[in-house]
């Protein structure tokens, strides 16, 4: 047998598969599956909590009442636009004229 043939023969002959590898693989797969499920449920929980908080804050914005100063300003503008303040203005100018 030539040295080259011996080389290929030696290349083909391989030490046996180490024992107990399948159990290790199965354990690792289970661990990976648990981590995967845990991370998915964690992500889902985080998304749900975020969605809840965002909804809450939006609801608060919609239901909150404006500040009194702002209400007064809006009232003045509304009266000006509707012409409701005209009578009051005329009376005030009349008062100044009398003086």
């Amino acid at each position, binding site marked *: *047998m*030539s*040295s*080259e043939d*011996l*080389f*290929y*023969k*030696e*290349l*083909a002959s*391989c*030490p046996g*598969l*180490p024992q107990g*590898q*399948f159990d*290790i*693989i*199965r354990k*690792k*797969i289970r661990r*990976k599956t648990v981590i995967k499920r845990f991370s998915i449920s964690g992500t889902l929980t985080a998304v749900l909590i975020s969605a809840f908080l965002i909804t809450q804050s939006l609801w608060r914005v919609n239901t909150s009442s404006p500040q009194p100063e702002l209400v007064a300003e809006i009232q003045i503008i509304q009266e000006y636009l509707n012409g409701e303040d005209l009578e009051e203005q005329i009376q005030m100018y009349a008062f100044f004229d009398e003086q």
Partner: protein
Amino acid sequence: MEDLDSGTLKKAIKGDDKAFRALYDHYAPFVWRLILRMTGEQQLATELLQDTFIRVHGALRKFKGDSSFSTWIYRIAHNSVLMSYRKNRKAKFHDPFEDQITACSHADLYQNKQLAHIVLSDLTIEDRFLLVAREIDGLSFDEISQICGISAGTLRTRLHRLKETIRNRFSETSIGKEAVA
């Protein structure tokens, strides 16, 4: 390499534990030999064998049957070794059974293993893969091409040169003569 029967394969894809065990029993020896011959390190080869089958388990549902299952599993093993190699840059080939063969009393056996060790240590990781896949496991060039993404023609040329290099290596040095003497 003969493929596992399609019934067991389908069961394994559906998540049957026993079928996956059968799949492991069928393919692990081939995967083990490939990885061990590519890496030359028993500890690393054991880790990569585990890594390969974890990947196989995770990707089973993605197997479409475009290639044979053995080619598909070979590709995963090949990629695992290459990824580990790129990460660690371990180019040095170490025969895992050097310690065992040193203790071996049979001189011829020792010399044969020493011979294989010396020649393998000079080859690149891809060359070792090509040698094992083609010369030992008898994969076709088309199958090897599917695994490593190199054209069959290039692989054919590369193997021819590789075998020539090995032949020259034996003739240049006295390793071969010593081994067979």
